[in-house]
């Protein structure tokens, strides 16, 4: 299992860099990991709005929400979502939020 070191702590991740032990997630983890998802500078309030929304939804339903739902509930559009998370909501945002890897379809 690959490991990464962020802010002095070791985390186990999968091949795509998704956190394996979900209970190890912390705000420090997200902050320190942001640069790997092409986010320049620190996470802003807008980033946290998305991350917290994803975490709440995941805790409630056990899956990541559909992207349209994120946009609708947070009142942001896709363009904004990709501006905040340049590697995309499924990859970037879910990874920083410490969600398990969304099961994609080819």
């Amino acid at each position: 299992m690959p490991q990464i070191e962020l802010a002095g702590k070791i985390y186990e991740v999968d091949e795509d860099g998704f956190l394996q032990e979900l209970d190890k997630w912390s705000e420090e983890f997200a902050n320190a990991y942001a640069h790997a998802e092409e986010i320049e500078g620190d996470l802003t309030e807008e980033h946290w709005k998305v991350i917290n929304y994803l975490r709440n939804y995941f805790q409630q339903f056990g899956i990541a929400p559909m992207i349209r739902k994120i946009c609708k509930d947070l009142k942001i559009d896709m363009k904004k979502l990709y501006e905040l998370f340049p590697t995309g909501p499924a990859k970037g945002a879910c990874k920083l939020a410490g969600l398990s890897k969304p099961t994609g379809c080819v």
Partner: protein
Amino acid sequence: MSKPETPLLDELEKGRWPSFVKDLKQAAKKNPMARDLIHQLELSYKDRIGHWKHGGIVGVKGYGAGVIGRYSDRPDLFPNVQAFHTLRVNHPTGWFYKTDALRKLCDVWDKHGSGLTNMHGSTGDAILLGTTTDHLQPCFNDLSDAGFDLGGSGSALRTPSACVGPARCEWACIDSLDICYNITMTYQDQIHRPMFPYKFKIKVSACPNDCVASIARSDFSIIGTWKDDIQVDQKEVLAYASSINIQKEVCDLCPTRCMEWNGKELKIYNDDCTRCMHCINLMPKALRPGKEKGASILVGGKAPIVKGALLSWVVVPFIKLEPPYDELKNLIERIQDWWDENGKSRERLGELITRLGMRVFLKAVGLPAVPQMVKAPRTNPYVFFWPEDIQKEVK
């Protein structure tokens, strides 16, 4: 004599037909990824199980689609295919390439990937098979420099595709190439940034022969057709009579039996014709599609995953299709909005219509119920009464 390394795969090289094993072995001489791929496949055949893990989330900057992550579950044995991601490259409409463009594409892929490609499956895109995560962004940059872009994957609008249409085919009733290109350019955002409940495919066939199998392979099928009568050249029909049995091979095989042949003249009852193309395909010199051309729009087709295969069914019997295709695009957007709003995660359009009912779908997207929508006689007559209509009658 040494023992063959891949005895099971070698079986697939026997016989006169082309073999992907031969191609893989050729690629393996140059590329270690291709070499490990062969050996992993041999092991899969031996173990009777695929040795790829399910899914992976990788991508390039700004895009949520176009790359499909793939990892081996035996990287200890096959380190060169530990990561073996696929790139979907948006194909040129109708799959027309200059050799120069193909060379560029292959050069990029030799530089960044396994050198193995897959062109073209029914997805449409040029599929580049096998690269590592580190190579994704540089490969995408090189592809962009060569004039290529990625296609759709995941819950996105998939790369629209079209038949060769008027560029190569005499039966084209619509300009499938232009329509496909126009749709592709209009919906770049939906292709690159997945936002739907699941995949959404649009395919355009220029005539009812449906060479891109849009009826079976797309959620939104655009199929060229005509409104008036089949054009008949009786002299040429007579000429065919000397080489084929018109009664047996043409009239008797017409699914609606809408033609009569008296040995001298072919009579077509056009009102009963369902545009199956059989007679036209058989006697191309004698029969042609009518002059008033346009398209039928069908929705709901899909392959078997999740709830079973569906064929698209008619929702618009006839629509004129000319640039800028506003009416068409407006319909696509109305349908996508409804599906997006009501669809569950991983529910295709056809499945949603089946779940909520055709009358709900038609009302939501503002389409009138018409007889052409009947899928099979006496099964679904589309006679719709809403509770308020019944109330009105009672009063």
